[in-house]
Every structure is written in structure tokens, then in C-alpha cells.
């Protein structure tokens, strides 16, 4: 299930063909991932950054646990980035939907 549904976009007056919708949806998620990690990095110390860099082969569950233990305000970071990105879509809804 995509984060951005067509229904949500339509509620903002954005009507896209399937191909554009898929691109937008993918771009939304990719951008969100980038922004979240960029924000997370700002909360890390060098030692934590080294730990994170060393966890590339670690399973998701372990990485998830590490993030929850080491990143203060992780919930706020994710929630804020989601809100900001959705706000940007709402802001550009006229341009995107036309």
C-alpha cells in the first residue's frame, strides 16, 4: 500500500494518470527517507555515527532497536518530516494537479 493514495491526492484536487502517480509516490517516499536520515544524522555523535556505519549488514530489527535507543526525538523527527512533506504537496497541489 503506498503512503500516498490516489484518494488523498484527489482530495487535494490532484488528479494524476497512473504513471505520474507512481512516480510521485515513489519520489515522496524516497524524499522522506532522505530527509529523515539527514535529520537523524544531526542528532548523532561521532561514535554513534561509526556504530551506524558499521551496522550496514545488521538486520532491520537490530537497526530499528539501535535507532530507537540512540536517536533522541526519533518520533518527532519522523512525524515532522511527514507533516512537512505532505504540506509541500498541499502547497504545490495546483501546480502538480494541473
Amino acid at each position, binding site marked *: 500500500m503506498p503512503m500516498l493514495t490516489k484518494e488523498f491526492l484527489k482530495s*487535494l484536487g490532484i488528479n494524476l494518470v497512473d504513471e505520474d502517480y507512481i512516480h510521485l509516490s515513489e*519520489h515522496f517516499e524516497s524524499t522522506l*527517507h532522505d530527509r529523515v536520515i539527514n535529520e537523524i544524522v544531526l542528532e*548523532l555523535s561521532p561514535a554513534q555515527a561509526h556504530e551506524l556505519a558499521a551496522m550496514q549488514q545488521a538486520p532491520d530489527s537490530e537497526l530499528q532497536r539501535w535507532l530507537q535507543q540512540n536517536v533522541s526525538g526519533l518520533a518527532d523527527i*519522523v512525524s515532522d518530516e511527514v507533516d512537512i512533506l505532505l504540506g509541500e504537496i498541499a502547497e504545490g497541489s495546483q501546480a502538480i494537479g494541473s
Partner: protein
Amino acid sequence: MAEQYQETADRSQDDEPALVHPQDQETAPGLQEAQDRLQDVELLGNSYKVRQMVGNLGNKRTRTWESIAAKTKNGFDLPGKKVLEFRHSRAERKHDEAKEAHQSLIDEHEGAKRDLMESDMSDRLKQRRLNRLEKKQQKQVKKSQAYLSKWENKRSIHKTRLEKHTATMQARRESVSNHYEQRRAEMTKKLLERKVMAEGRKTLRAQLRAEGASSRPWNNEVRSIVGEIPDHQRKRVGEIAIRAQLSNDASLRARFSAESALRSAEQAKISLEKNMADAMMHGSQAAAADKVARDIEQHALPSAQDRLVSLQKQYDSLDENDPSRIIVMADIRNAEAEIHDLTRKTHLERTKAENHRKQNLELLGQEHGLLHEIVSRQVQAEQQTAAHNQHRGQSDQLSAQQREEVQHVLNSDERK
């Protein structure tokens, strides 16, 4: 369209230093394919808070419903509109005909006058005939004018009715559109407000970090370390962070639901205990009332009845002139009154006992319901926790599979 959005997103990203690994800028086809596949799987497989929020909006459903309602009402009004259209059209046609006939009549009169004036008659005769002709023509014109006015009025009335009817139907259609636009504007406003608040919090975090910059001299070092992490791995961290948050939210929701269910069960238990106490009280009060009634029936009432019989015998045995008869008669009346009171009291106690038994039964029925509620709430709490854990387990498993797939492709690319 997506490109326009890309620009918007990229602009916002410029606010923070980019953390792009140089090696990742040239993405291998296999890696790109694997990332695309992973992204597609993620798009289809993940569950997000946003999706849940979006699912609740139901904007389109409301619009569809309103649109159907308006169309249905307009459908009912359509035959009326057709009738009004027919009447208006008929009035219009009749009016045009009357107007044409009126104009023809005037032309005809003008022609007759002209013919008369051009004839060889004497002026006096001409004048006389002209007067007669005008008089006759005036009557005809007056009649024709009345007919024309009649259809003008009718046309005007039918036109007004038709316009009103059409306007009502049109307003219904516009109302649907306006509501949709209104909801869209509200939705946009809400999202923008949330964005502003989120940006405020983000800025505040940045300010707090800047204030403590002297105690955090490592920011550039951290950027450099994290910059060494390949792009797909950084995206993975971002994705896991989002999932961690969502998983946390889901856990909280499940916990709240379970706690709520347990609280309800606890409340039901308290009600059950109170009910049981009340039922016991009603049971004992019913038994007490039964005992009182039984005591009266078995002891007091027979005793009173015996006394009455005895007094009646005594009364019968006394001579009619014996003054004691009056005293015995009074005792008889007292005994009868006592018997009456005892009977009434017995009846009262029996009714009281019956009422207590009814309340007892009612409470027992409620107890059954409460027991059922307790059990169902407890089951609900267990199911919610179990379902959440299962969902979480499945989600982790799916993610692990996806990761393995991507890692496999990445490893094969590296080997190449």
C-alpha cells in the same frame, strides 16, 4: 507533474547539506533495478500512519454520495421541468402567433385605409367610410390586443416557473461542487498548518543544536562518517526509522486498546460484584418478607380467626337483652379488623417478596450480560495484542526478505 514536485522537494532538501556518496551517483543498472523493485514492494507492502490518516478522509466518498443525492433529487424534479418546459414553449408559440396575427391585422387595416383613401369617392363619403372602418378596426384591434396580452402573461408566468425550477436543480449541482471545493480548501489548510508547526519544531531543534554547538564540535565529522555510507543504506536507515516510529505508534495504539478493553472488563467486574451484592440483598429481603407472611398465615391469622369464632359463639350464646352483647360485638368487630389487617399485611409481604425476587432475577440476568462482556473484553484485549504482534512479526519478516533480495543483487553487482 511529478517533476514539478521533484523541484519542490529538492528545494527543501537544499536546506540541509547533502549526504550523497560519490560512488552512488553512478548507479549500476542492477542496483537501480533492485532498488526499484524494493521500492515497488515497499509501496505495496508497507503500512504507514499517513495511509491510515488518508484512509479516514473519505472526501471522495462524501462527494460521490452528495452527487448521487443531488442527481436523485434532480431526477425526481425532471418530469416537472419537462411539463414546465412544454407549457412555456406552448405559451411562447401562442404568444408569437398572437403577435403575428395582431401585426397582420394592423397591416390589413392600414391597407384597407390606404385603399379607401386612394378610391375615387368624394371626400365626405371617404371620411364617413373611414370613420366606420376605424371604429370597426378598433374593435378588432382591441380584441386582438387582449388575446396577445393573455398569452404574454401566460408566457411570463411559465417562464418564471421554469426558471425557478431550473435554478433549484442547478443549485443542487453547484452545491456538490462547492462542498467539494470547500473540503479541498479545508484539507489544504489543515496540511499547511501542520507543515508550519512541524517546520517550527524542526527549526527549534536546529536552534537548540546550534546553541549547544560548542559542546558538539563533531557535526562535520559525523557528516563525513555518515557520508561514507552508501546511499541505499542511508535510505534504508530512513525507512527503518519511519517504520520504527509507525511500529511504536501501532504498539501504543494496541496497548491503549488493550488497556481500554481491560478497563472495561474491570468496570464490568465491579458492576458484577455490585450486582451480586444487590442480588443477595434482594434474595434475603424476599426470604424475610416470605417469613413474615408465613408467620402471619401460620400463627397470627389462625389465632385471630379462632378468637373471632370464639367471640361469635359467645355472642350467639348471650341473650338479646344482655348488655354484654354490645361489648362482645365490639370485640368481634376488632377481631374482624385484625384479621383484615393481617390478611392485608400477608398480601403486602408476599408482594414485597415477589418484587425482591423479580429484582433478583433481573440482576441475575444482568450478571449474565456482564459476565459475557467481561469475557469478550478480555478476549478482545488478547486478540488486539496478539494481532499486533503477529502483524509486527510479519512486517519484520517481509522486510528481512526484501533486504535479503536487495543484498543479493548488490553482492552480485559488487562481484561483477
